[in-house]
């Protein structure tokens, strides 16, 4: 495990990510390393389920840093992301401390003096004690360097994005009652986006950009081998080849790596020995999550059945894309 909490070179980045069971290609390793060197947030984009979130976890794991995660959603605002005063607690304390307060104010000769005394005590109620820290503030105030994951930033509103700008460029936030709080350690920030909407230019400008695409056959195969070691090598290859060919077809949602892994796990659980049609038909729904996609692929399977019955069962998966084009 790394003791200095930073990557020293690109090779080391690849290695230690690999140690977290994350297979990083050159592109990923270089960009992660750069983002750490330049102290810039890393914006990762790509289809759903290619391991964008996983990357942040792996970075946190390999640097032995805490991962602070902020999941974005529509309507997320700074009270959920940054901080909130614990007003209920504040009220409660005021109630409980009433006697104390009265004592403090007891000897006051004039209203002005009482107010002055009260002002002196005011800080008690607006201190860190009553500050409810949300992920962003936690990442900034943390005593140890952390990894901050801002997940699915494209789901948040545009105005939240604008609010993030201050945090991401200076790593400081201003709390009106407390002043400006600056980061002790600049965290490694990873933003992920599924590209459901265009992010603002200003945000993109502040980030390094990494596009993670579906992996190549060999890469995906090594991921499957790593994560589902129980699957027979021959089966694993067949399965990955099938998934890769499914991605060539025009589907509403292509199977992602995580779905490949789920499927591989399902095959292991079902004790399947070969990728025959029956196994496929029962497990295909693990890969394809849309009714129409499922039917489309099954139809193509069925057509294959009618046409060449004697064909080797493992052969057809290479056939899929070609047949699609004939359609």
């Amino acid at each position, binding site marked *: 495990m790394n003791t200095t909490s930073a990557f020293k070179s690109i090779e080391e980045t690849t290695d230690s990510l690999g140690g977290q069971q994350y297979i990083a290609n050159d592109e990923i390793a270089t960009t992660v390393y*750069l983002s750490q060197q330049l102290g810039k947030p890393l914006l990762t984009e790509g289809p759903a389920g290619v391991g964008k979130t996983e990357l942040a976890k792996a970075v946190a794991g390999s640097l032995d840093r805490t991962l602070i995660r902020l999941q974005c959603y529509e309507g997320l605002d700074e009270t959920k992301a940054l901080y909130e005063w614990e007003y209920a607690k504040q009220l409660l304390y005021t109630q409980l401390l009433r006697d104390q307060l009265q004592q403090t104010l007891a000897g006051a000769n004039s209203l002005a003096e009482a107010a002055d005394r009260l002002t002196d005590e005011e800080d008690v109620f607006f201190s860190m004690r009553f500050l409810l820290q949300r992920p962003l503030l936690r990442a900034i105030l943390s005593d140890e360097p952390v990894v901050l994951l801002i997940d699915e930033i494209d789901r948040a509103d545009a105005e939240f994005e604008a609010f993030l700008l201050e945090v991401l460029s200076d790593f400081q936030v201003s709390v009106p009652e407390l002043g400006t709080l600056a980061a002790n350690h600049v965290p490694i920030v990873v933003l992920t986006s599924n590209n459901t909407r265009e992010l603002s230019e200003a945000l993109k400008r502040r980030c*390094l950009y990494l596009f993670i695409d579906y992996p190549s056959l060999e890469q995906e195969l090594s991921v499957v081998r790593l994560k589902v070691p129980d699957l027979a090598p021959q089966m694993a290859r067949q399965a990955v080849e099938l998934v890769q060919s499914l991605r060539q077809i025009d589907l509403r949602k292509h199977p992602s790596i995580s779905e490949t892994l789920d499927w591989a796990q399902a095959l292991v659980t079902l004790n399947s020995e070969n990728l025959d049609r029956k196994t496929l038909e029962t497990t295909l729904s693990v890969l394809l999550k849309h009714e129409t996609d499922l039917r489309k692929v099954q139809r193509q399977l069925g057509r294959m059945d009618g046409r060449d019955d004697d064909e080797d069962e493992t052969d057809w998966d290479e056939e899929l894309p070609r047949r699609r084009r004939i359609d």
Partner: protein
Amino acid sequence: MEERIVKFISALRSGGVRVSLAESADAFSAVDNLGIQGRDAFRLSLRATLVKDAESLPTFEELFPLFFGSGEPPPLMNLMEDLTEEEANMLAQALQEFGQRLREMLERLLRGEELSQEELDALGQMVGLNHADDLRYREWMARRMQRALQFEQVRKAMQEIMELMAQMGMNKERLDQMRQLIAQNMDALREQLRQHAGQRIAENMAEQRPEDQLEGLMDRPFQALSDSDMQKLRQEVRRLAALLRSRIALRQKRAKTGHLDAKATIRANLKHGGVPFHIKHRDRTLKPKLVVICDISTSMRHCSELMLSLLYELQDQVSKSHAFAFIDHLEYITPDFQGNRANEAIQQVLIRMPPGYYSTDLGHSLQNFADDYLDTIDHRTTLIVVGDGRNNYNDPRLDIFRKMARRSRRTLWLNPEMPMLWGTGDSDMLDYLPLCDTILQVSTLSELAAAVDQLLVEKS
């Protein structure tokens, strides 16, 4: 090197990639960090800092090797060296058969000489390479340069030489070997030309100011757009839709009425000891309802296609929208939009309703609407008509239109024609005019965007 990177960045810009100053500064510090020894690391450090769009990645990958060389073109082989004296004589004899220019070229191929920079420049001058500033011209320019070098003739001449030498009694194996080497040399020369063309064009691109390519398109009338422009515009429409969407979201945030947001109110009033001076409201969603009637006859196709794609992109914002298209009769096209991708959906509609010849009939279409779909318009609906109001002298059915306009919250007409043409010929625009709340001339994308933006503002 730095100069080269700056040039590269300006080429990227004119290739349509948005690169800000801050980003180019980042690129330099990234390069400082990783150095330029590792070619891959260098490429990635530029890419991560300069390109922030998946769509721009191909542009980057295409330009990068042109500026930072993907290595040399394949080396050319010298055949003359390992010929025996006898063979060399035969070759010299065979060469005698050809004219001066061809001979030079042939000898170059045999000796394996690259083209010098001056020669390349001269060639480029000849074929007008200096004016090319779009990578799409690359292959074409390379071919033109090959033609200027008489590649085709040279190839034929080479064959003849080989035959001649075979007749002279040259060893067959040796001949095959030579033929292969010559073919390789030709390929290498071809690659050299291709690279030169690419580099030259990329440099031209860098010098060219990133002229407001898209802005230009956005202000160009729809009729004047080529297919590739349309493609570009469609992408722009998508960006625009995202922009409008967030602008709408901002506007909705400022809602001053609606349900009380208790939590936010308490929070805002803490400083007053919990006495609610400032009331906070829950965000109100002011989603407009739309009924769009779109003319997709021949004269209107460009405009309607973009309008439909913009509507499609805004679907999640304008969830209660009903779209209709008409030429001679009305069709309900919202079902086509659902569950289909924008392009497919629009194509599907356009294929189902092929343009006729002088067949536009708005009156009849309005009749269809009144018969079947009048209930889609209520007091919250904005009615939009996209069309030029040219009706082939059919009955404009103003009575129905009046009824529709009265039922709706407001009526908006988008017309791509210039106002001075309204009412001329078969245009009934002037008759419809008094019945609409707003009439906008929309002949460019930016006008269309402004119109849609306006339409989503709540009428105050």
